[in-house]
């Protein structure tokens, strides 16, 4: 299973990758902004995407919209500080499959991964 992790914070990518490793996922692609994430996905589709919302170049919402526009149904988990109801609804309408609000405990992230990870 290959997973794309998009976040402009290297620390946050490491935290997420640590949890992915813990559930057996080691084939991971990293992106430091929305455009990198879109380019990485188009170059080499993955089985799961975890993306931040607020990133330089293009946002996580842009990532979701552009990837869904390709017809892809890849599961996407938004991992973000944005927690207002309107934003959660906007993300779901754009095609996000699940939503995790920062800050989170490692068990919260593990529970989300367990829904989508199969190794």
């Amino acid at each position, binding site marked *: 299973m290959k997973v794309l992790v998009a976040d402009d914070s290297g620390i946050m990518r490491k935290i997420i990758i640590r949890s992915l490793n813990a559930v057996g996922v080691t084939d991971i692609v990293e992106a430091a902004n929305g455009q990198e994430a879109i380019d990485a996905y188009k170059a080499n589709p993955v089985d799961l995407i975890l993306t931040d919302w607020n990133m330089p170049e293009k946002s996580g919402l842009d990532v979701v919209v552009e990837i869904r526009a390709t017809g892809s149904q890849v599961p996407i988990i938004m991992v973000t*500080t944005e927690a207002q109801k309107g934003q959660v609804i906007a993300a779901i309408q754009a095609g996000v499959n699940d939503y995790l609000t920062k800050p989170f405990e490692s068990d919260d992230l593990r529970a989300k991964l367990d829904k989508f990870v199969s190794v």
Partner: protein
Amino acid sequence: MTDNSFLATLDVSEKRQKLIKPFANCTKDVFSMMLNWETELIGIFSQEAFMSRYDCSGLIGVSGALRGSIVVSVDQDVAFAAAEAFLGARPDTINAEVIDMVGELTNMIAGGGKDRIGIPGILLGLPTVISGKGHTVTFDHGAHVEILQFSSPHGPLTVEIGVRGL
């Protein structure tokens, strides 16, 4: 929802509470959930009364329904201990990873506090981090400023909100 004794006994105006409580509670949650640290709100200051900043400060611009900045300033030991908790190795300088971590802590505190204020249409920018002994941050003249002083197991930190439009 978190609480602490200082906050529970705080006697300030409703307007000030509107800023203080969301950011006080969110700061405690961020450190508790991400680092398993207990932080305690130990003081609230006005800009005039509290001008010094710690070694590393994350800043986020606020626009939309409120306009100004949110600053999270941490002592060097706090930054190093947090980086060690996240990365497994303690840095000995304020390097790129420490700066990234302070930016992300700022992002989580600002984002969570913003959502808890309950005012729709507040927008946040991306964090910028500055470091160096004795640096200062000056808020927009006329902004409503609240400086929240916290203790943590590894040293002091402040969360500072300076906004117009409240």
